[in-house]
């Protein structure tokens, strides 16, 4: 498939990805750094390039509520937010997943308050990791676009029917102009397909009740069905990604394996930091150090069996967490990875880094690899470490 090479910010790229699905409804409230994405979308609508009905709400709680109502009415629906906006959506984020509404959302990752900070970390999405959404992470504008296109197919698949969020790092991806290949509108829409709703609140011939009281006698069964949908999702994520790979030549899976084949030391990371890690790993490879990286793309559902297999037999693993879990044992990614590695004799250590947009530079990756080499040769390292902070 011939694709146009364009220069866009991550926000613009995702706005295009969502527009190409021809959604019926978008409900959103502006918040930095997501604002530009909805600016771009509003421009499409104002210029007549999109027929999406935009609902400009008074808060994110209303944005997610409007999205739920719209999706239950049978409309293809998306929203977008960041940080505190996602936190304000909280209650309805769970409702969207519980009702199995295939809403797509751009979550432009930004630190949660306080103190107030507009820059990137993953504390917003990590707070919502148990809400029942599918979480895809992106390394750059290209991946944010690709995840945006694929998110519709994954969310709306009959075996899944779960809301899906496309995460991309605030400012680092959202506001940086980047070169990417974009599908022509027709080809993207052909891939995504026409939306088939399962029911509609507006269908008076076939009335439905959505969100009734669900007490001790049925709630548990409904949650069990939601758990089963999450368990089916990875297979669909892979199938959709394979089809997208055939169409575009860009192949995705649960994670990207960078120089992993013979890697003894592995860094596990999400999002834009992967690019920085790759550069430093290249330098170490030139020196003969067997370092590699595993960039997790699908954080929810967490691909635990895959992680256990791919990290088996490594000499040392470092997980980079761009959020802290206060009072928890390390960051959220570490907790999952270490749990997946249960029963294996592979040392797994955590680094909390980059909070509130703190720059993640080459020297930090070098520190991690140096420490992993030390662990690999029998040295000691704390389970949970901090990276790039003044103590």
């Amino acid at each position, binding site marked *: 498939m011939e694709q146009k090479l364009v220069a866009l910010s991550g926000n613009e790229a995702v706005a295009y990805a969502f527009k190409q699905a021809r959604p019926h409804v978008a409900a959103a409230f502006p918040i930095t750094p997501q604002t530009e994405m909805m600016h771009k979308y509003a421009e499409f609508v104002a210029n007549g390039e999109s027929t999406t009905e935009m609902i400009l709400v008074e808060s994110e709680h209303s944005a997610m509520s409007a999205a739920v109502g719209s999706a239950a009415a049978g409309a293809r629906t998306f929203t977008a937010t960041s940080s505190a906006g996602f936190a304000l959506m909280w209650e309805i984020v769970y409702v969207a997943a519980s009702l199995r509404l295939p809403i797509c959302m751009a979550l432009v990752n930004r630190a949660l308050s306080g103190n107030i900070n507009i820059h990137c970390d993953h504390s917003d999405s990590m707070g919502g990791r148990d809400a029942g959404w599918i979480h895809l992470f992106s390394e750059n504008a290209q991946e944010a676009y690709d995840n945006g296109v694929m998110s519709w197919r994954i969310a709306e698949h009959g075996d899944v029917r779960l809301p899906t969020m496309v995460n991309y790092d605030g400012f680092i991806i959202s506001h940086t102009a980047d070169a990417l290949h974009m599908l022509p509108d027709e080809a993207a829409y052909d891939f995504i397909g026409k939306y088939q709703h399962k029911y509609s609140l507006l269908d008076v011939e076939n009335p439905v009740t*959505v969100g009734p009281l669900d007490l001790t006698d*049925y709630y548990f*069964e*409904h949650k069990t069905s939601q758990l089963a949908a999450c368990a089916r999702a990875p297979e669909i994520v892979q199938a959709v990604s394979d089809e997208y790979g055939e169409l575009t030549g860009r192949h995705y899976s649960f994670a990207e394996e960078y120089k992993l084949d013979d890697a003894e030391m592995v860094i596990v990371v999400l999002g834009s930091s992967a690019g920085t890690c790759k550069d430093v790993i290249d330098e170490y490879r030139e020196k003969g150090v067997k370092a590699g990286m595993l960039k997790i793309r699908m954080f929810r559902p967490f691909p635990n069996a895959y992680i256990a297999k791919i990290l088996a037999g490594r000499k040392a693993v470092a997980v980079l967490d761009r959020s802290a879990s206060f009072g928890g044992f390390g960051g959220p990614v570490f907790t999952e990875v270490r749990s997946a590695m249960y029963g294996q004799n592979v040392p797994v250590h955590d680094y909390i880094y980059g909070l509130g947009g703190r720059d993640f530079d080459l020297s930090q990756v070098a520190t991690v690899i140096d420490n992993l080499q030390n662990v690999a040769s029998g040295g000691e390292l704390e389970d949970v470490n901090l990276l790039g902070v003044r103590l």
Partner: protein
Amino acid sequence: MINTKDLHEGGIIRDPGNATTYKTGDWRTFVPQFIEENCIQCMFCWIYCPDTAIELDTSGDKPKVTGIIMDHCKGCGICAHECPPAKKGKSALVMVREEK
């Protein structure tokens, strides 16, 4: 009771009006006792009942209260409160503690 695999996704209800099949009568402590001879068929109980627990016979020209549907009555006592003591100061509905 329906098992997980047979439930509609997301807990939606596709058969409207199925609340009548959901038995909620075991919530109550007190139960209204219907004394037909005191009933003047004013229909206040039927209007005020927050559920659908007042049993009506609608076969004749005018509907007629015939009793309480115990599968749905939660024993709130609103019917007895609203029932006018029209027959020599006596009401047709009085609350009594239910023996279980």
